[in-house]
Structures are given as structure tokens and as C-alpha cells.
């Protein structure tokens, strides 16, 4: 599985959405991506990629696309 597939799967499984919806998803665009969903998604992301995000990055993680940029800082190319 590629990193992009793993990354997409985190969104599809956490929020119960399709990969197509995930690709353009932004925070609070769906009810499931609220404060609670955000923590759950970040927790899975940290487990899957074996990283620990800085709090600024957790706060800045506002969309699927933004998340990809943030992961680069942790040497995770998506």
C-alpha cells in the first residue's frame, strides 16, 4: 500500500466517506470532522506513520491537502 493509499484510508475509515470525498475534504465540511473526529483522525495518522505531530501542526491540519504538506515535515511523502 502506498503512503497516499494509507493516508486516504485514514480519512475514509475515520469519517466514513469515499476516497473521492476525502480528496477535497476540509475541517468541518462534514459533521464527522469536528473536534472529536479531528483527534481520532490525528491519532490514527500518528499510529500509521509512526510519527508524533507538533501541536501547531495538529491545529493547522485543516484539510486533506494541508495534511499532505504537514506530513512532508515528518519525512512522510504522500
Amino acid at each position, binding site marked *: 500500500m502506498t503512503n497516499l493509499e494509507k493516508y486516504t484510508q485514514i480519512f475514509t475509515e475515520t469519517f466514513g466517506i469515499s476516497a473521492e470525498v476525502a480528496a477535497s475534504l476540509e475541517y468541518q465540511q462534514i459533521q464527522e470532522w469536528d*473536534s472529536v473526529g479531528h483527534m481520532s483522525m490525528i491519532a490514527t495518522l500518528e499510529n500509521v506513520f509512526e510519527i508524533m505531530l507538533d501541536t501547531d501542526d495538529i*491545529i493547522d491540519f485543516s484539510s486533506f491537502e494541508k495534511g499532505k504538506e504537514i506530513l512532508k515535515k515528518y519525512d512522510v511523502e504522500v
Partner: protein
Amino acid sequence: MKIIDAFWEKRNLGVSCSEVEIENGDLVELVKKELSTIDTQYTVLKVPSGRTDIILEITRGGYFFIEASLHLIHKLGDCHLNGIQERLAQKVDYQLMNEADIRVLFSEIASGMFNTDRISLDPYFSSEQSAKRYIGWISDELDKGTSVFKLIYKNETVGFFTFKDIGEGVYYPFLAGIYSNYAKAGIGFTTIYKPIFEALKKKGKMISTYVSTNNLNAMRMHEAIGFFCDKINYVFIKHS
């Protein structure tokens, strides 16, 4: 049942208002009779869950369902935070607001901080009236000595919570929120967690609060932190 003259809503919303609280033992006939005496422009009626006999009667009388209000409590002993929440919570501090902070808070509220309350969702009212009501409510509580705290992340104010002492070690954070610049930051849970922290500091026993079913995010956050529901009221409204 209790019929309260909510005179403060004249200032907040511009209409006369009665708030009616139905109690579990109330008889339908008595409720019907008492409601017929109300002549305010806006009436809010709270019915305990399970009283479908009263619900059927009041809907025949022109009352419309607007929300369910969940009474949530947290007994402070068992506060769940996951690892990430814990990391974020450690970075978010809180401090009592001064007058300048209150002005910033009111400006945030006026710019549309809340949109799931029964006023902003009611087409008879507007989001401006909703904001005015919240500002009026907080001002009244400040006059009574209720504390309002700001939430701080890296020297920036990111949100607030109110903290009302209702006696016997029980605290009621009746309103909380995240400021617009941080509304998409996933830190909403700190508005719920920090009052617990403050109550523990004051050696309190319990947090008591209300959440509307129109605010699913708030319900999920409270549940995630260990609140449980001990009472539900169905809320009906009528405009005359």
C-alpha cells in the same frame, strides 16, 4: 409547572417572552389551562422527555418543536483525555478575562460565533438577535459575579468559557466557544476540559451544563470527555 416572565428577552430579542417549565407530575389539563393565560409575543416551553401526553396537547395548541436540551453532568473524578487531547490541553492555558478581553469576546460573538442555538435557528429571529442575547446574558452574569475565562494558546486568545458557581460545589459553564481564527483548529474540547480543571482546582464536586441536540459537535465533545446525560427536556416555541 413554572411560568417565568423572561423580561430580559425584551432587551435581548425585542419581544416579550415567557419561559414555561413543565414538571413531571403536571397534569395535561392544568398545563392547558395555564398556557391559555400566557399573552407574551414569544413563549418557550420545556417538557420533560417521556411526557408525550403534554407534547400532543401543546402541538395542538400551536407550539413547535425547536430542540432537545440535554442536561449533562461530570462528576470530576473520571476525566478521559486521549494522548493527543492531553498534549494539546497542556499547551492551552486559561486566565480570568479583564474588561478589554470582554470587549474582544463580545466582538467575536457579534461576528457570528454561535449558530446552533434556538434563536439563530428560528426564522422569526436573526443571528444578530442571537448574538445580542448572548452578550446580554454574559453581561448579566458578569454583574452577578460569574467568572469568564479566556483560553490562551501561545500568547493568543483562542476562545473562552464562562464559569458560574451554582452552589454546593457545582459549577455551570453556561457558554463557551472558540474564536473565529481558531474555529478550525480542533481545540474545541479545551472549552469543556478547562472548566473541569478549574472546578477541580476549586475542590468542586460536579460540572452541570446543558447542550442542545442541534449542536452535535458539542454533544460529542462532552461525551468524549466523560459527561453523561441525566435529564432531557424537549423545547417548544410559539410566536404570537
